[in-house]
Every structure is written in C-alpha cells, then in structure tokens.
C-alpha cells in the first residue's frame, strides 16, 4: 500500500510539472468541454420556453442545474487515453512503460488526476460564473453531496477502466479514430449530454440503462440534483459496480493478449 501511495505521489508530481508547461494549450482545449453543455442548455431552455415553461420534468432552472453539474462530472470523469494509446503503440513509446516494474495504468491514472487538479482552477470559476448567468435550481444537501462524491469517484474509475480497455484496441489496429468516434457518438446520447436521459425515446433509454455511459455521467448528475429515488440510487450503484468489475476483468484480458502482440518499432 505504502509502495503504491509513494509511486502515485511521484507520478502525480511529475505529471503536474509536465502539464504545467502546457497550461495555455490546456485552457484552450477546455473550451469545447465548457461550450458543449452551454449549447445544449440553451437549446433545451429555448424548447422549454416555446412549450410554455418545461420539457418533461425539467424547467429552464432545472436544465441549468443539470448542465452545470454535467459539465463538472464530465470534466472530472473524462479521459483522453483512447487518443494517446495508438500513438504510444505506433511510435513504440510503450516500451518505456513496459520497462517499469509497475502496471502502466497507474501512471495514466495519476496523470489524469494531476490534470483534473490543475484544470480545477478553470472549471470551478466557470461553474460559478454559469451559476450566476443561468440561475440554476440547485439545492445543496450535505448527505446528497456525500453520496454524489462516492458516485463520482466510482464513475471516474469505471470510465477510466473502460476507456483504457478500448484504448488497447490499438494493439490490433493502428487506426483508432473510427472506433473512438463511435464511442464518442454513443456517449453523446447515452451519457445524457445531448439531452437528459428521461427526454430520450424509450428504446434509447433502455440502451442507456444497459451500457456504462449513463452510469458514468448522467447518474451522478441526477443524483446531485436530487431527482432519483432511493431505489434508483441503489440500482445506479449496482450498475456502476458491475461495469467497474467488467472493466477490471477486460483490462486484465486485453492487456495480457495485447502485450504479447506488441513488438516495438525498430526492435
């Protein structure tokens, strides 16, 4: 345990220093992730106003709360690992990771956390600004918040495991863009970014319940907003746990097979 904390701390510090060099680029790359929820918030607010006040159970103030929290949840759970892995494998950079006496996923998790810590400086003020601009209907209860943090933590690890597994497909194909885009497209609909899940057609809702996207993003958001019953919350945690387990097993399998397949360029 002590070994892991020390290693994580070391990875975390190096990543933090490394990323600090790219702070301007980092801020620019965040524009899209901040703008997207604002776009859909505006679209749905406009729809609500056209309909005379609300869409389903969402008023404009509910949409505002939903999308501001969604922006935060998405920011804290997302990873870019699917985009970096094919580079790593194609360029043979992975060899450096293989030489270290620790599973490479730890360095990636530490790097991701370092990035989230660093970008918190941007995302929190943005959230506060949006809070004043859009006047969301968001009540703060300490118990709900505690449960939300748990769901957020699970969502982060679960999403990271799944995206890391998908990233490993790069061992077999050298072109991942098409797969990445499909995953991204599914995520757009099924994780509640285009619209809250309740507003989607029934068939898509059923799909969203089965796949991990909803449990990684929409579930913590709805939880924070106090829109879920106790039963729904339990169900959500169960789904998170199941997908977490599935992700964990898939990583073991694909990593073992993939490394066998890997031959560094130039060797």
């Amino acid at each position: 345990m002590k070994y892991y904390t020390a290693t994580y701390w070391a990875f975390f510090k190096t990543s933090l220093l490394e990323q600090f060099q790219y702070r301007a680029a980092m801020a620019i790359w965040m524009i899209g992730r901040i703008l997207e929820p604002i776009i859909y918030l505006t679209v749905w607010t406009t729809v609500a106003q056209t309909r005379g006040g609300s869409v389903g159970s969402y008023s404009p103030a509910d949409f505002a709360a939903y999308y501001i929290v969604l922006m935060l949840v998405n920011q804290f759970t997302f990873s870019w690992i699917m985009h970096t892995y094919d580079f790593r494998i194609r360029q043979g950079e992975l060899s450096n990771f293989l030489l270290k006496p620790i599973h490479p996923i730890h360095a990636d998790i530490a790097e991701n956390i370092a990035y989230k810590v660093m970008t918190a400086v941007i995302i929190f003020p943005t959230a506060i600004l949006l809070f004043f601009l859009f006047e969301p209907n968001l009540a703060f209860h300490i118990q709900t918040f505690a449960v939300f943090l748990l769901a957020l933590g699970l969502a982060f690890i679960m999403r990271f495991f799944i995206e890391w597994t998908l990233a490993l497909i790069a061992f077999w194909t050298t072109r991942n863009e098409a797969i990445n885009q499909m995953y991204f497209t599914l995520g757009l609909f099924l994780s509640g970014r285009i619209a809250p899940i309740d507003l989607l057609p029934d068939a898509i809702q059923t799909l969203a319940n089965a796949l991990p996207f909803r449990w990684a993003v929409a579930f913590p958001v709805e939880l924070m907003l106090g829109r879920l019953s106790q039963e729904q919350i339990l169900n959500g945690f169960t789904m998170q746990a199941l997908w977490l387990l599935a992700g964990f097993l898939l990583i073991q399998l694909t990593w073992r097979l993939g490394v066998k397949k890997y031959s560094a360029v130039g060797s």
Partner: protein
Amino acid sequence: MYYLKLIWIFFRIGLLNEMAYRVNFYVQLLQSLLSLGTAIAGLAIVFSHTDTLGGWEAIDILALLGVFMFVGGVIGMVISPSMSQLMDDVRLGIFDYTLTKPCDAQFLASISQIRLWRIIDILLGAGVLIAALIYRGLDIGPREALAFAFVLCTGGSIIYSFWLMLATLTFWFLRIENILHIFQSMYEAGRWPIGIYPHWLRYILTFLVPVAFAITVPAEALSGRLTPDSLITSGLLCVFLVVISRWFWKRGLKNYSGASA
C-alpha cells in the same frame, strides 16, 4: 487565370497524396456519415419535444445543418490544414521557400495543403441543404438564392480572414498552434441558430469568433428571414476583415527572419 491554374495544381497534389492512403477515404466517409447521423438524431430528439426552436422549424434547422457541414468541410479541406502548415513552416524556417516563389505568399500559404477527402463533408452538406430545400418545395426565388450566395461568400471570406489573422500571429509567437483549436471548438455552436444563445455568447460568436456570418446568416437567407441589416453587416465586415487581415499579414511578413538565418 494563373491563380486558378495554381489552385488546380495544388488540388491535384492533394489528390495524389491521398491516393497513397486509400483507406483514409473510407475512414473519412464513415466519420462524416457518423457525424451527419449524430446531428440528425440530435435534431430528431429536440424536435420530438417541440415544433419550433427559436422560431426555426425542423426543416430550416436541417438546412442550417447543411450549411454547417458545407462550411466546415471547406475549412477542414483547405483553410485549417494550410494554416497549420503555415505555422509549422514558419517555426521550422521552411517558409523561406514559399517566399522565394514568384507568386503572392499569402495566396500560396492559403492553399498549400488540401485534404481532399474532406470534400465528403462538403458534398454531404450540400446534399442535406438541397434535400431540405426540396422538402420545402423549392420555395426560394432568385432573390433569396442570390442573397444566399452573397452571404455565403462573404461569410466564407470572413472565416478565412479570421483564420489568417490567427495564423499570422505565428510570426511573433512561434508556438501557438493550439490557438487554431479555439475556432474548432467555437464552431460547434454554429450547428444551432445563433439567435437562441444568450447575449454574451451571441456577441462572441458574431464578432470575436465570427461563426454567425458563415452559418446562421446564409441559412437565414434561405428561409427568408434575412434582414437587410445582416446582409449589409456581412458585406462590410467581409471587406473590413479581408483588408485588415491582409495588412496584418504584411506586418507579420516583415517580422519574419527565417529560422536559421
């Protein structure tokens, strides 16, 4: 005539380059179809809850989507790759070779890279636009068509000048290729009519990152809601930005001294 010939040559080089990687065609086709499908599904979800969005009917927003893809395709095919190339060239000093050619350097730099397969987006965009117009029963007269062509050209020139100015900054600051990403991110907002956004965002999308003139205004022209005001503003802003960006480019050039000299 000379310039047209040059464009044709660069086009052919682009084609030859792409022919070496034919799989890319299918990858691009898949990605373009996927993003078209995503956009239409998104529209379907929104319009399953309402009939109009900020005064726009579904079919008008579909036409807007066509313009969005068309303009996005043009940017992705020529403007974005050429401007990235320009920034790389300036950093590496290869830009010397562009300057020594007996042709206007701004022109050469603006068409130096052509990613031909992005033409799929242009064609799909045009297809969606035409389909939307046919569905509406081709109810546009020559005046609307002319206004559309006019604001599409001015909007395109506005976008081009904006990119050129961003890329020209490279003459002073070498490592700023990420600045181009600002535009890519903001462009996404253009898939919905700018009018629905809050004031501050509308302002940004109109004057700071002029997405509005390239997408919303042409789409307005097609659905007959173009005001003379936007038509004139678009024309004036186009002239202004083309002149300013040209001036800025010349200033930048003076600042360029080559990387190894």
